[in-house]
């Protein structure tokens, strides 16, 4: 136990470990807030789709030779998010088909560009880092942490400010429109926030595992709680807890950060499933 504490103390003497913890917890919190809405709107897979778009955009940025790929990645991801979420049910190709099309299309184009026009000699490493996060979260700088804090504050503030509207647009968009509220504006805000979170979360778990951050906490909370508010609060708590445990475990055991967080999310989901079985029996 003493060795473990000493090791923990040693690891936390490095600033980048603190940065990873702060950014990891903030991303987990933000993704869980929006996760409930996305799951309820049947957009669970949008995280996956948009992250693949971001992957493709990264390849394009590499091809163009930009030192800062975010100038391309963020706008493309945001535009894709808006297209996917705003078109809604009126589009010719809607819902899961649109997401699947954009997802696999961007992934294929991105991978092809990375191989045909490699920006570094280690293409395999680049692809692996982007898809699985690798140790990106442990390689953040102060500037990244500050940006993440600012964006997290904006996301949380937007969620709290528009809580009732997001609630309405989540459950009954048509009723909202009939009541004279411009649902499109709130869909746009949700789309921008979703894109921001996904680009941020790519550092944490990589583009293949982002969906887990969005859906698992929400689904876990839905096993036990029934109201929107309680599900959101529980989802946020579960997400932050899992991210914290995942990062600690990863640092101490040397496991990959992203997959460790996701495995923790899965374990918590099963625990909540078991808890829900007991609570249902009691209520019956």
């Amino acid at each position, binding site marked *: 136990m003493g060795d473990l504490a000493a090791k923990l103390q040693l690891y936390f003497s490095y600033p980048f470990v603190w940065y990873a913890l702060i950014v990891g917890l903030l991303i987990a919190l933000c993704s869980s807030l929006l996760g409930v809405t996305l799951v309820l709107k049947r957009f669970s897979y949008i995280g996956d789709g948009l992250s693949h778009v971001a992957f493709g955009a990264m390849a394009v940025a590499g091809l163009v030779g930009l030192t800062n790929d975010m100038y391309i990645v963020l706008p493309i991801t945001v535009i894709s998010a808006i297209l996917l979420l705003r078109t809604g049910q009126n589009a010719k190709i809607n819902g899961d088909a649109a997401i699947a099309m954009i997802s696999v299309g961007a992934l294929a184009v991105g991978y092809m560009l990375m191989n045909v026009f490699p920006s570094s*000699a*280690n293409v395999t*490493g680049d692809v692996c880092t982007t898809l699985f996060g690798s140790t990106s979260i442990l390689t953040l700088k102060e500037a990244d942490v500050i940006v993440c804090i600012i964006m997290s504050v904006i996301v949380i503030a937007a969620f709290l400010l528009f809580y009732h509207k997001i609630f309405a647009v989540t459950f009954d968009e048509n009723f909202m429109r009939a009541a004279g509220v411009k649902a499109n504006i709130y869909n746009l805000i949700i789309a921008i926030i979703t894109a921001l979170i996904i680009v941020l979360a790519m550092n944490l778990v990589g583009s293949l595992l982002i969906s887990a951050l969005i859906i698992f906490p929400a689904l876990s909370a839905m096993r036990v709680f029934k109201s929107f508010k309680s599900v959101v609060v529980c989802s946020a708590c579960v997400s932050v807890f899992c991210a914290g445990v995942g990062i600690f475990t990863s640092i101490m055991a040397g496991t990959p950060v992203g997959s460790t967080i996701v495995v923790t999310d899965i374990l918590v989901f099963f625990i909540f499933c078991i808890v829900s079985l007991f609570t249902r029996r009691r209520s019956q």
Partner: protein
Amino acid sequence: MRKYLKAAVPILLASALLCSCKDNSAAGKNALIDEIVSQISAEDAAAAMNDEAKSVTTTAPETTSEVQISSELTLGTNPPSSEATDPVQLDPVDMDLTQMNATMIYSIIYDLMVKPNDYYGKSLIVDGYFDTMYLDEFQTRYFFVVVPDATACCVQGLEFKLPDDKVYPDDYPEPGTDIRVRGVLGSYEEAGQTYAYISADQMIVK
């Protein structure tokens, strides 16, 4: 008030989009090391060894450290069982990376490459595999201790330089050999860039 706040949110979101563009210049520098390491595997190492063994002289820049470590080199053979040859036992170092897991080692080396100023003058000991490359442009041979990350898809190559009297290839192992390097972190300028390296006084073939 609430109305103004609602109007401000989309503006703030747009600002956040612009601000979130992070600087990847350090990653680019890091990519150079990755590239160097990757190029090595493509080289015909054996041919290069014979060509350059006579002409290359490794220049070991002055270390900025005040830490004194015994100048002992153990090569080509496994370290004797005697504890005296274990660098950890010889003298405590500031950073003993051999006691850390793959994730932390990879992250520390990345941090070291990105923010070398924070680490200059510190003594360290690190395990990895040996690799080398020769750049015609600078007429210099570079030596690396290469450390993979936990997912094993990414590697960080940390350059090291042994004392001048060590000649390549006689005093160095084959590329891919597991090694342990002990030394002090320093830096040198090349082509307008500052690079971190280990001014190594000990390299052990594991």
